[in-house]
C-alpha cells in the first residue's frame, strides 16, 4: 500500500503515534505481554525448538538432547543421556561417513554445517536430516563439548527425490523421443525406398504402354515423344507403330480417360486390342469399332472406361504413302506439307471409344508426299496452361506453330514440339504423347 504525506496516519484517531522513550502506561502493559511471549522459558525454547538439539562430549557420548529430537527418534531421555553416542543414532552408512569425514572435519574446523545424514529412530525407521555441529571451547581454548543442531530434511529429501524422479522421467522421455525420431527417420527412409520402388514399377508399366523403340519403316520417318506429368502416376496416353506386311504399317495414338493403375490397365487392354484387331483387319473404322466393343463389354456394369484414339494405316503409293485414319473422339491430326502449309485432318463423327455399344466411326484419307509430315498428339499439348490467367495453348496456336514449322521432318517436328512442351513448365500438368510420321523431302539422302 502506498501512502502520501496527505494521508491520515493509520491511528490518527488515537492521537500522534508513540515515540521512543515517550511511552504511555498502556504501552508498558502490552510490552510486558510481548516480552513474556518472546522471552518465555529458555528451557522450553530449547526443548520445543523446531529443530533437534544435541550436545555430546568429545568422546561422542550424548550429554544433552532436546525433546524435539527425542520425539523424532522415539527415544526417552533416559535411553539416551550418558548411554548412547551420537554415532549410535546414525545408520551404518552414516556412521562411516561420520567417522571418515564429519568428525575429522569438525576437529579441524571447529564446526561443520548442513551435512545430510540419516538418523535411525528407535523403531528402525530412517529420518533424513541436515546436521550442523560446532565445538564449544573453554576460555583456555580447549574443546569441551560439541553442540549439534538437527534439521528435519524429510520434505527436502522428498523434494530431491521428486527432482530425481522428474529428471529420470525427462531422460526417459528424451530417450523415447530419440527412439521415435529414429523410427520416424526409418519410416521416412522406408517410405522413400517404397516410393522409389513404386516409381520404378510405374516407369516400367509406363514404358510398356509405348514401344521401347520406334521402328523406322522403309521410306518413312517416324519420331515420338512422351511427357510424363507425374512420376507417381501412370498416365493413360499411348501410341504405337507396327508393320502389317506388304510394306504397310499401322499407327495409333490415344488417351485413356483417367489416371492411375486402372487407367493403365485399360491402356494396356486398348493397345493390345488395337494391335490384334489390326492384324485381323487393318481398316481403321473396323479396328476402332472392335476396340469400342471390347472396351464397352469389358466395363459394362462397372466403372465405365473409355478412350480417345486415332488409328491409321500407311500404304505405299506412287507419291509416297496413303494415310487412312479414323478418330474416336480424339483431337484431329495435323498435316504439315512440304510447301510450308499446315492443316488439321478432319475426322468427323468419331465418338469416344467404349462409351456406346455401337458407336460409329468414319475414316479420312490423305496422301503423304516427300516433305510432308503428319503429327498426332494428345490433349496435354493443347490444354497446357500458358498464362497466369489459365489461358490454354489451344488448337489455333498449335496450327500456327505447325504452319511456322512446316516443312519439317518427323524428327525436327517432334524436337520442336518437345521444346514447346518444355517451355510450358508447370502449365503442362497432363501426360502428353506426340507421334510424327513423315516422308523425307525430295532430294535428301
Amino acid at each position, binding site marked *: 500500500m502506498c501512502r502520501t504525506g496527505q494521508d491520515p496516519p493509520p491511528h490518527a484517531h488515537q492521537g500522534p503515534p508513540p515515540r521512543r522513550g515517550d511511552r504511555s502506561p498502556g504501552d508498558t502493559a502490552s510490552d510486558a505481554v510481548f516480552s513474556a511471549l518472546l522471552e518465555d522459558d529458555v528451557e522450553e525454547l530449547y526443548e520445543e525448538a523446531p529443530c533437534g538439539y544435541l550436545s555430546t562430549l568429545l568422546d561422542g557420548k550424548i550429554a544433552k538432547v532436546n525433546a524435539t529430537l527425542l520425539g523424532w527418534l522415539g527415544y526417552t531421555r533416559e535411553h539416551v543421556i550418558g548411554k548412547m553416542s551420537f554415532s549410535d543414532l546414525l545408520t551404518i552408512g552414516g556412521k562411516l561417513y561420520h567417522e571418515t569425514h564429519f568428525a575429522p572435519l569438525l576437529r579441524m574446523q571447529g564446526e561443520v554445517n548442513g551435512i545430510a545424514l540419516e538418523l535411525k529412530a528407535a523403531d528402525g525407521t530412517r529420518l533424513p536430516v541436515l546436521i550442523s555441529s560446532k565445538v564449544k571451547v573453554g576460555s583456555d581454548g580447549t574443546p569441551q563439548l560439541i553442540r549439534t543442531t538437527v534439521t528435519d530434511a524429510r520434505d527436502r529429501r522428498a523434494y530431491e527425490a521428486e527432482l530425481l524422479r522428474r529428471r529420470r522421467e525427462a531422460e526417459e522421455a528424451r530417450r523415447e523421443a530419440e527412439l521415435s525420431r529414429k523410427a520416424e527417420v526409418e519410416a521416412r527412409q522406408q517410405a522413400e525406398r517404397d516410393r522409389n520402388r513404386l516409381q520404378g514399377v510405374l516407369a516400367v508399366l509406363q514404358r510398356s504402354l509405348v514401344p521401347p523403340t520406334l521402328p523406322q519403316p522403309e521410306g518413312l520417318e517416324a519420331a515420338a515423344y512422351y511427357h510424363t506429368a507425374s512420376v507417381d502416376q501412370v498416365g493413360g496416353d499411348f501410341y504405337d507403330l507396327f508393320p502389317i506386311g506388304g510394306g504397310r504399317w499401322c499407327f495409333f495414338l490415344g*488417351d485413356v*480417360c*483417367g*489416371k492411375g493403375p486402372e487407367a493403365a490397365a485399360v491402356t494396356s487392354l486398348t493397345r493390345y486390342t488395337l494391335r490384334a484387331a489390326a492384324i485381323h483387319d487393318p481398316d481403321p473404322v473396323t479396328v476402332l469399332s472392335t476396340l469400342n466393343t471390347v472396351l464397352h463389354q469389358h466395363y459394362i456394369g462397372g466403372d*465405365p472406361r*473409355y478412350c*480417345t484414339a486415332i488409328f491409321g494405316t500407311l500404304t505405299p503409293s506412287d507419291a509416297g504413302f496413303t494415310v487412312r485414319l479414323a478418330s*474416336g*473422339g*480424339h*483431337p*484431329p491430326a495435323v498435316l504439315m506439307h512440304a510447301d510450308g502449309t499446315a492443316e488439321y485432318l478432319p475426322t*468427323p*463423327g*468419331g*465418338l*469416344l471409344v467404349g*462409351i*456406346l*455399344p*455401337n*458407336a*460409329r466411326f*468414319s475414316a479420312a484419307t490423305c496422301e503423304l508426299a516427300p516433305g510432308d509430315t503428319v503429327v498426332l498428339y494428345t*490433349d496435354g499439348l493443347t*490444354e497446357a*496452361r500458358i498464362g497466369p*490467367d*489459365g489461358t*490454354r495453348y489451344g*488448337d489455333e496456336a498449335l496450327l500456327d506453330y505447325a504452319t511456322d514449322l512446316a516443312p519439317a521432318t518427323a524428327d525436327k517436328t517432334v524436337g520442336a514440339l518437345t521444346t514447346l512442351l518444355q517451355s510450358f513448365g508447370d502449365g503442362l*500438368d*497432363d501426360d502428353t504423347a506426340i507421334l510424327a510420321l513423315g516422308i523425307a523431302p525430295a532430294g535428301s539422302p
Partner: protein
Amino acid sequence: MTDLSTTTRTTPTGPITEIAGDLDYHSAVRLREAIRAIDLRPGETLVLDLRGLTFCDSSGISVLIAAHRQAEIAQARMILRSVTHNVTRVLRTVGLDQLFDVRDGPEIDAPQQPSRTDLTRPGTRPGTGTD
C-alpha cells in the same frame, strides 16, 4: 485458372446446376460429387448450365457422361444449356455433341419425350448429329 463453382436450384421441371470455372482433373471429382448428390425423379430434366464453364478437359467430359448416365438411370433426362464456344468444340471433338441434348437459350421446354439416347441399353443409336 478459375476455381470451379457449382450452384444447384430446384425448379418445377427439375434441378438446374450452374457450373462455372475450370473443369479439369483436379476439380472434376467435386462436380461429380455435387451432381451425384442431386435427387432426380423420373420425368424430370437435369439442366447443366455451362455459360460460366471456362475450360473442360477429358476428366470434365467423364463427369458429364456420368451425369448423363445418372439421369438415364433415374428415368430423367439431361440438358446442357448455354454451352460456350470452347466447350462446344471439346464436345464436338469427342463426339458427345451427337449424344448430349445441347440447347442455346436459357429457356427449357418441359420434357416431351424421353432422353434421345440410352447409354445403358444396347442397340440404340446416337442422336442425329453431324453424321
